[in-house]
């Protein structure tokens, strides 16, 4: 466990000593604030539904910037040679980095809580729905982070890592839209099942379904396992 903690602390220190974390958090909060104001004050609907939907797509596009350096940065700085020769197991490196990325996600999520102040002051929102939306948001983010982290391990170039991650995450987000073009029922339900946005939609509507929770966790686990296996294989 020591190894995971050491990697985690090192990653966190690295995030906050480079401008990337501040940039991503700032863009995310600006975007979320804009969507919130637009949805609440211009349309006059006192719920977070639309805002969550917008936060989801914003997250999908920003996560690659957060994850791109996780492994690519280690390769290009030649520090991977240190990590792989220290008494660390591959999974400890993967989990330490992942937990740090999840911490960044949680910080971003908590910061959006400021939107709830006017919502509760001037409206009468349903707390359970909001809570479920936030749970869905964090789970969605965890799956995206795991995927981004895996792609970051495949290349030395951070930009390339981001450029692979963005279309993959967008594909998972929009894949549900392809349902309309499919004649076969099983294919339609498969596409719906793989859709990040459809599962997220359940959470936004206040439905905390085991299937949706499991979906995001399984996606994260698969990506992290691939990540670990890839590091082992490299040796």
């Amino acid at each position, binding site marked *: 466990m020591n*190894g995971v*903690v050491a990697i985690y*602390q090192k990653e966190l*220190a690295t995030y906050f000593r480079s401008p990337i974390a501040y940039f991503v958090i700032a863009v995310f909060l600006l975007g979320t604030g804009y969507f919130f104001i637009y949805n609440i004050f211009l349309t006059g609907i006192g719920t977070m539904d639309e805002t969550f939907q917008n936060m989801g797509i914003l997250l999908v596009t920003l996560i690659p910037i957060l994850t791109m350096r996780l492994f690519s940065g280690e390769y290009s700085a030649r520090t991977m040679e*240190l990590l792989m020769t220290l*008494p660390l197991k591959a999974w400890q490196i993967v989990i330490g980095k992942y937990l740090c990325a999840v911490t960044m996600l949680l910080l971003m999520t908590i910061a959006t809580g400021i939107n709830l102040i006017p919502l509760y002051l001037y409206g009468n929102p349903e707390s359970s729905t909001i809570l479920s939306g936030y749970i869905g948001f964090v789970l969605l983010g965890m799956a995206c982070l795991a995927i981004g982290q895996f792609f970051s391990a495949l290349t030395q170039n951070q930009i390339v890592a981001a450029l692979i991650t963005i279309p993959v995450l967008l594909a998972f987000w929009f894949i549900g839209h392809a349902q309309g073009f499919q004649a076969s029922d099983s294919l339609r339900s498969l596409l719906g099942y793989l859709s990040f946005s459809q599962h997220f939609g359940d959470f936004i509507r206040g439905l905390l379904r085991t299937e949706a929770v499991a979906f995001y966790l399984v996606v994260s686990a698969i990506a992290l396992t691939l990540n670990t296996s890839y590091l082992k294989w490299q*040796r």
Partner: protein
Amino acid sequence: MNTTSTSISLESVSKRYGSRNIIHDMSFSVSKGEIVGFLGPNGAGKTTTMRMIAGYTTATSGRVVVAGYDMATDNEEAARRIGYLPEQPPLYDVLEVAAYLRFVAKVKGVARSAVASELDRVIHACRLEAVVTREIYKLSKGYRQRVGLAQALLGKPEVLLLDEPTAGLDPGQIQETREVIRAFGADHAVLLSTHILPEVTLICQRVAIINDGRLLAIDSPDGLQRASEQTNRVSLIVTGPAEAIREALLGVEGVAAVEVRADRGDTLAIECQVDSRPEIAAAIARVVAARWSLHRLERQQPTLENVFLRYVGEEKSGAKA
């Protein structure tokens, strides 16, 4: 567990990348309390061998055993006993020196209560006091190299692997770094790669010469020199008839073999294999200059440089044949 004093052992180790053979059937060992220099031209396979011993890559065949642990199966246990400075020091630029060293100490399993004193020890040994609170990206090349060395020394590892530890240092720093390595080598096994020849004579008990992924020789610097002294060379440039000169030279006591090549016109380039007596060059000069015109005579000294070039050169001509 290991019970003998052998800390690093390679048994018939080979490494292949695709169809390319990088390391061929390499075997040697390093004992506790011994500093072994790994000498070879660029691209000889020094870094790859270091990486296999450090556990960064695995051998395609053969066995690498470090501190009694097989790197193929127990590399994590072995990693606790290895300090490794790669060719390019693996540093996190945005961290301060102290934060970086604390990170490595923690991963190496240095007890929480011992971290501060362990950091002090390596910071002092590598003369890093002045830059402890500075971010690594602000450091000069010499300091970066020494932060890398400090990292390797953390946790007093049984085995120290240093890939060109003095590269990029100024003469004063090189001197200090050698002192650190020599002190550490007194009770640990150290393998250091370099292409700076005087370095190995100064601090290494044994030298391994490698080229093209093959181990050509391993011996003490003195032993290698003695071996080459038996085949000392004197080279001459003379104008005269080849056969007559060859006979005259073979008549000189201590000349074992003579090789004659045409240089320009009737000028000849001649190489004599001689024994180690210093007066031979003068005797050859007397014999040749009395009858023909001698343009140049040079006694090749058995420096480690010559030994190295001889091994590497022989290997090259052997490969061509």
